[in-house]
């Protein structure tokens, strides 16, 4: 037990103590949070922004604790709604009460820069505990830091931790509880927790002036957060300034300008003055606190960087790493996904053997199980990709990849941080979009999210293989080294990427206008990745996908199933199925076998008829005029509509429409024959090279993937963006397919 045993006056509060964690990026904040909260973590979104809200529960010496993980940040100078969240949480100006205690996490090996945020937090007047994390690394580097001196200088308790090794937690918890009790004692005697001002007198005087002005302007809610008033002065064009001007009047802007002018006359230009004053104060503090800082020799990180970001070697290694990642994902996720597919098939069979053919069985096997399977097949890919992302990020390589690729991404108006999310989208857009969280700039992040689904994901491959296999002549060039089909496959796979560049450019100039993207990024030191941190990331992403996307993907699958089944009388179909199943087929050639084949054919015809008359089929007919210019008939139209849940569904749908039963894949002989033999009512063949290319182009650019749309909804926190993606991609896909067909037909007529 700690000194804080229940015999001391442990606060017997009904609500848990709210403890917020704040710190620079890469200080070990997540590691500490996860270690303190264990598995009792809830994630959500702050209303109206894309910032993840993470809270965890803990119990410290009998006191229930609610831990709040704030986004990593270098400062409290909000310049976007996302950054404003942190300030709102700390000042209690948002939707929640302000925290009872705030823990400021610092990287002990980079104190100078980390104390910047600490001095800002101290100006809010919250009970604060400074936590010097990575203490193990500081010891290893033989840094001598005097904790007592630092605590004295800052006026708050300072504790040391090593979050990875889970040491120092007890002291941290004790310090937090102690700070809370101090603040309780203060408030009992009518005092509030002292604000520690780093800013000098002239700045403080201006803050007082502004406060006086606001008293007259009668804005009580602002006066409760004096910190906001100082932020409005110090961040020209920042979110706080805008908010206060909105709440009062533009006269406040004049007040601010006058105040800044007076400060400039004292050579305290805003915003430079704030950083200079803080770093000056930090300099004074550290002069006392750091008693030994061994002459920095060339560090391991520096030597590694010389190789890993080398002009030639660096690029080669980067390409090799990406190849390794994606081929490993292919190797391992395909069998896993097949396994899941297989178990779903097995489950279907089990249900089928228990229930006789009927609406319930149809709902369970064709709707529910197929729907769940549609969600789960993504899980191996997502988990594996996140495993790699977590490892690459944790060891520090990711930042280097972004550094090397920044120049390339700048072509599309993006930054290097978009590189990995877009690369990942070549495997699957879902984890790619989830990986955009590393992009700090909101506009960059949204543009990346919106173009990620254009990257050629693995679900498009079945369509490509089917179409090239059927209609692209099997010839090769260069003595068989270069098959035409492979060239077509490569071109069609690159199409999305090529289209994405102008799309990103246009988005950056229209919906996401503003300052050009920047690439100001800290490159963390290389470290051995931690198993625990990595495992946590993989678990989190898998859970998020299954929980949030799962339900919606599932629902959509059911809806499409219903649209393909109703209206229509399925009695004949169920009869046929019952009869087929009742036949005891020993060999395909015996009487029963022949009968079964006959019945199957009837069943397929019945299925096709039902589909044609269902809502889905009618939609297909309805949109035929729309797809005619693409060289398609209504059957291909249905295929597109039905593949809304996932692109690869079109292969099965085409199978059903062309009366083959639903168990087909892209290598199915029957499907090949049926497609090649399909005709228009007037007898012209339905498919030719231009038509098949138009189908491929459409699928390369369209947004037929509910999982992607749902993840966009989750990551952008609004239905607006998935809707936007769907519309723009469908329009692009239509135009692309139209051009492919029309140009193809012109060329065909010319050459014949």
């Amino acid at each position, binding site marked *: 037990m700690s000194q804080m045993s229940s015999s001391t006056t442990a606060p017997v509060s009904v609500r848990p103590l709210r403890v917020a964690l704040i710190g620079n990026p890469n200080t070990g904040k997540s590691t500490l949070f996860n270690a303190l909260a264990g598995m009792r973590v809830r994630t959500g979104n702050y209303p109206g922004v894309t910032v993840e809200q993470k809270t965890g529960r803990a119990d410290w010496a009998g006191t229930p604790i609610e831990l709040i993980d704030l986004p990593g940040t*270098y*400062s409290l100078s909000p310049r976007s709604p996302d950054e404003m969240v942190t300030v709102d949480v700390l000042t209690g100006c948002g939707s929640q009460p302000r925290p009872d205690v705030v823990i400021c996490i610092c990287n002990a090996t980079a104190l100078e820069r980390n104390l910047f945020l600490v001095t800002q937090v101290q100006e809010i007047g919250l009970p604060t505990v400074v936590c010097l994390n990575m203490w193990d690394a500081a010891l290893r580097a033989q840094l001598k830091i005097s904790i007592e001196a630092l605590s004295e200088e800052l006026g708050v308790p300072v504790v040391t931790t090593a979050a990875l090794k889970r040491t120092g937690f007890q002291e941290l918890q004790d310090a937090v509880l102690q700070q809370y009790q101090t603040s309780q004692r203060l408030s009992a005697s009518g005092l509030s927790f002292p604000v520690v001002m780093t800013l*000098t007198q002239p700045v403080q005087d201006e803050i007082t002036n502004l406060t006086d002005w606001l008293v007259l302007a009668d804005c009580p809610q602002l006066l409760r957060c004096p910190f906001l008033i100082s932020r409005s002065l110090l961040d020209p064009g920042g979110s706080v300034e805008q908010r206060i001007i909105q709440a009062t009047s533009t006269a406040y802007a004049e007040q601010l300008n006058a105040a800044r002018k007076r400060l400039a006359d004292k050579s*305290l230009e805003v915003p430079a003055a704030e950083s200079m004053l803080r770093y000056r104060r930090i300099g004074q503090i550290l002069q006392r606190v750091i008693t030994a800082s061994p002459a920095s020799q060339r560090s391991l*990180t520096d030597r590694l960087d010389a190789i890993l970001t080398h002009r030639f070697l660096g690029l080669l290694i980067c390409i090799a790493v990406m190849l390794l990642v994606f081929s490993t994902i292919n190797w391992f996720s395909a069998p896993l996904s097949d396994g899941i597919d297989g178990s779903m098939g097995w489950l279907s069979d089990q249900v089928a053997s228990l229930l006789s053919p009927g609406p319930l069985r149809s709902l369970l096997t064709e709707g529910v199980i197929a729907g769940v399977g549609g969600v789960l097949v993504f899980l191996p890919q997502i988990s594996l990709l996140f495993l790699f992302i977590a490892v690459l990020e944790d060891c520090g390589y990711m930042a280097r990849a972004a550094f090397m690729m*920044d120049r390339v991404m700048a072509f599309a108006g993006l930054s290097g941080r978009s590189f990995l999310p877009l690369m990942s989208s070549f495997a699957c857009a879902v984890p790619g979009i989830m990986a955009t969280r590393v992009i700090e700039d909101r506009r960059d992040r949204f543009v990346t999210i919106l173009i990620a689904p254009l990257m050629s994901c693995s679900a498009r491959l079945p369509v490509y293989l089917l179409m090239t296999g059927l209609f692209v002549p099997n010839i090769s060039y260069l003595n068989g080294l270069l098959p035409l089909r492979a060239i077509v496959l490569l071109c069609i796979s690159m199409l999305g990427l090529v289209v994405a560049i102008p799309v990103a450019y246009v988005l950056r100039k229209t919906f996401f206008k503003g300052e050009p993207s920047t690439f100001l990024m800290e490159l963390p030191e290389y470290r051995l990745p931690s198993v625990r941190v990595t495992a946590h990331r993989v678990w989190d992403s898998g859970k998020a996908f299954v929980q949030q996307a799962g339900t919606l993907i599932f629902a959509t699958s059911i809806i499409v199933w219903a649209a393909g089944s109703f209206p229509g009388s399925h009695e004949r179909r169920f009869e046929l199925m019952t009869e087929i199943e009742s036949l005891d087929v020993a060999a395909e050639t015996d009487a029963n076998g022949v009968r079964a084949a006959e019945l199957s054919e009837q069943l397929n015809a019945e299925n096709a008829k039902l589909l044609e008359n269902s809502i889905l089929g009618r939609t297909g007919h309805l949109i035929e005029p729309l797809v005619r210019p693409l060289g398609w008939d209504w059957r291909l139209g249905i295929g597109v509509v039905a593949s809304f849940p996932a692109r690869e569904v079109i292969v099965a749908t085409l199978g059903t429409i062309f009366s083959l039963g639903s168990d087909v894949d892209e290598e199915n002989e029957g499907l090949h024959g049926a497609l090649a033999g399909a005709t228009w009512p007037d007898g012209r063949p339905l498919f030719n090279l231009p038509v098949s290319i138009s189908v491929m182009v459409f699928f390369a650019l369209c947004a037929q993937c509910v999982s992607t749309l749902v993840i966009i909804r989750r990551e952008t926190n609004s239905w607006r963006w998935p809707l936007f993606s769907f519309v723009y991609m469908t329009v692009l896909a239509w135009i692309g397919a139209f051009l492919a067909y029309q140009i193809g037909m012109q060329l065909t007529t010319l050459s014949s």
Partner: protein
Amino acid sequence: MQTTRLADLKPGESGIVTAVAGIGRLAARLMEMGMVPGATVNVLRKAPLGDPVQYRVRGAVISMRSAEAACISVCAETEFSRQDLPDSMRDSSRLALVAG
């Protein structure tokens, strides 16, 4: 005092920040990360395609594009004197530690 743009320094060179131009987001972020007048900056290396560039400032490695580094003015370490800092900052920068 002769100043140049940080973007014009070559890998291996270093300088002392004398000013950061602008009042927007970029300038603010640069200064928060320690690029304030008086801080020593080392140019480490360029990315394979020539841009962005890695810098060391206050013990951390920061990468930025040349366009961003262009708004930072630096002077040679030998030319820098505290007299060049604004009055209110004069006693500031602990150069010894900053350089470490």
